[in-house]
Every structure is written in C-alpha cells, then in structure tokens.
C-alpha cells in the first residue's frame, strides 16, 4: 500500500528572489525566501523543484548552507527554457517551489573518516552544502580534500570560496581545467587525474562525487584504482525528474527512482547500471 502523501507535496509555494549572483556567463545563484510557510530544513544533497510561472518546473539542487534557516540558495545553469527563465529572475520576483526532496549525502556514515570531494563543473553546487557542514563540524571528520574540475578558468565555480577553503590547515583544494591559455598558472587536465595526484588515505576515505555522469564514471574508476572501496563512493545522479516523489517514473534508474531513492546513491549499488546506455 502506498502511504498517503502530505496534501501539498505537488503544490508549488511562492518564494521571493532576494538575491541574484552571476557566477559565470550562464550560471547564476539565487537566494530565495518563503512568502507563505516557514523554511523547511534540508539535508546537503537534496533538491527542490523550482517553477518559473508559465514556463515550467525543474529540479535544482540546494547549494547553500543547511544551517541557514532564513531561506534557500540555488545555483542554476541556463541550459533550457525553464533554467534560462529561472536564471533571468530578478530580485523581488516570485518563483514557485516544492521541496526539499530526495536523499542527501551520507554525512553520518562519513563521520570519523577523511573526506574526498570530487566536483566537476556545476557539480560543485550540490556539494557546497556538504563542504559548509564539514567545515562547521570539522572535529567529526578527518582530512578534507576538495578536487574541482572546470571547463576553463573563467568557468570555475565559487572561486573566492575555494580560495578561502584552501587557507584552512585541515583542507586541501586542487583545481583543474580542461583547457586554458598561458595566463592560467594552475593545473590543466581532467578531474580523474587529480585523484591520482591527491594525497589521502584510501581505506579511511569516503568520497562524494558530483558532476556530469561521464566525469563521475571516470572519477569513480580513478577512486577505485586508488583503493577507495566502491561502497565508500557516493555519487549524485541526475535524471528527468517530474513529480519528485517517486510516483511518475520519469526518473527511474533501474530499481531506483532518482528523485526518491537518490539523487545521492552509493556507487556500488549503481555501478553496473551506469554502464547501460539505455538507462
């Protein structure tokens, strides 16, 4: 028997845009505040369904600090009609919002371990709440390593925060870009190559990976080759989510609905499915 859902799960609520930050040419971070109900708590890794009135609704991961109960933060890349409309939202405009939905990163399980974060492109956004949590509760975790890959230096996300995190003695940050001109003095290459160079203790490490699926597949392969167990690698999946509550089936990924059972899933559970193009 399917349990009854809260009556308003499918009903977007009005949220006001209180801030807009342009992160790069087509990536924007929106700060949102509720116009109707208290701000619900969220887990790092969860997502909301954001609704641009008259255009449509898309799932967008939360990218702010879960400890900030004054509102939600979302980082959006303008790639389709809805995400473009959302990214063009002006301060004081109103959007529809349902959520938060899905499973977050396994922070309780990660307690006591070294943490390796592997983020590709906009994949750093769903991982930023994790980083905030790890930094705020660093006494519960070992060494924190953040590996971030980007297309070019101009597209590095949250650049000033990465620089700030790098100054902490318990955090290592490595950034790479796929291509650069000679004015870039950092690393050039793909993210999995950073995994090989990173200094960490594989048996004592839990890895959180987020980015384009191809990047996650090869990052997971690099982590396995480095000695991180498949059950200690967690990835954030992306599929075509519609209802966000595991009813409509649009985001079915084998035996899982990404919206309900994910988006964060253990790699050992889905590794074989990642190799199936039809899924």
């Amino acid at each position, binding site marked *: 028997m399917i349990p009854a859902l809260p009556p308003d799960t499918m009903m977007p609520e009005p949220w006001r845009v209180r801030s807009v930050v342009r992160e790069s040419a*087509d990536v924007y971070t929106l700060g949102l505040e509720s116009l109707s109900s208290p701000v619900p708590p969220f887990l790092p890794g969860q997502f909301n369904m954001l609704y641009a009135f008259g255009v449509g609704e898309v799932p967008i991961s939360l990218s702010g600090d879960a400890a900030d109960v004054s509102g939600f933060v979302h980082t959006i890349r303008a*790639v*389709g009609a809805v995400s473009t409309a959302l990214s063009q939202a002006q301060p004081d405009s109103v959007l529809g919002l349902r959520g938060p939905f899905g499973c977050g990163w396994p922070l309780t399980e990660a307690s006591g371990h070294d943490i390796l974060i592997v983020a*590709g*492109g*906009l994949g750093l956004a769903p991982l930023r709440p994790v980083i905030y949590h790890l930094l705020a509760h660093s006494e519960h975790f070992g060494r924190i390593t953040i590996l971030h*890959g*980007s*297309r070019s230096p101009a*597209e590095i996300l949250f650049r000033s925060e990465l620089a700030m995190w790098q100054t902490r003695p318990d955090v290592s940050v490595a950034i790479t870009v*796929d*291509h*650069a*001109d*000679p*004015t*870039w*003095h*950092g*690393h*050039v*290459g*793909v993210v*999995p*190559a950073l995994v090989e*160079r990173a200094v960490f203790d594989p048996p004592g490490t839990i890895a959180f990976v987020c*980015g*384009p699926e*191809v*990047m996650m597949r*090869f990052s997971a392969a690099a982590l396995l080759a480095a000695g991180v167990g498949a059950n200690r690698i967690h990835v954030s999946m992306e599929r075509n989510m519609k209802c966000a509550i595991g009813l409509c089936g649009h985001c079915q990924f084998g035996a899982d609905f990404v919206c309900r059972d994910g988006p964060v899933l253990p790699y050992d559970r889905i590794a074989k499915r990642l190799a199936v193009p039809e899924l």
Partner: protein
Amino acid sequence: MEMLESMLLAHPFLAGMDPGFGHLLFGCARNLRFAPGTFLFREGESADEFYLLREGRVALQLHIPGRSPLVIATLGDGDLVGASWLVAPYRWSYDALATAPTRAFGLNAACLREKSEVDHHLGYEMMRRLVPVMVKRMQAARHQLIDVYGRPPT
C-alpha cells in the same frame, strides 16, 4: 654520481626497477634545471631526449595562429614528459614550457633506444612503464575532447 643514480632510480616512473637496468638508464641520463618561461622543447624539434620531472611544473601547449597558445595539459612532480622520442620520425608535436622552477632528469633517446635494441629486457621494462602513462593520457585527452562541461546539445 652514485647519489644521482639512486635519485634517478627513486623517481616514481622508475619505482621498483632492477638496479641493473637503472645503471643502464643512468648512462643515458643528465640532471637538468629549467627556469620558468624556458622551453624543454618546441614543436617540430628533434625528440632526442625525454624528461622525468623531479619537481616543478611543465605546460604542454599548442600554438594556434592568431590565438594564444592552448595549454592542453600540465605535468608536475614525478611525471614523465614526452613520448615522441619513441616513434619515428622523432619530432615533438607540441611545446613543453616550464611554468615554475623545474628540475628533471633528461634521458637521451638515441642512447636509450640503442640500449633497448641490445637488451630487449630493458626495452620491455621501459615499455611496461610507458604504456600505462600513454594510455592514461590518451583517455584524458578523449575526456577533454568530449567537452564534458560544455552545453548539452539542444
């Protein structure tokens, strides 16, 4: 000299190598320093030496007429620089620019090819180490080629 030979054998690329092979390699090696802004080699030049980086940073780049050079990869401590010395006509196909103070062992390619012809075990040992590096770089180049962070096709 003995110290330099043991330093060469301690390079990650040669980790665990039989000291006898190491001695043969050392006969082809020299110790080098590159200041930032100097080229290890330029595209089209004879690939007569390859490099094992001890420390520093090297950018592999292609120059494109009318545009800034494009950096396609950076290499650092413990990396090998250069594979064109393996394949005739032994010409570099890109530039290698030191972007930080860099120390490296240079290995004379003709010397190593000659020794490998005489001692195929040495040649096999080198190929056994070179091939994984080349395969990883080819795979990385493919990943860069698919532009994984680019805009999805509409």
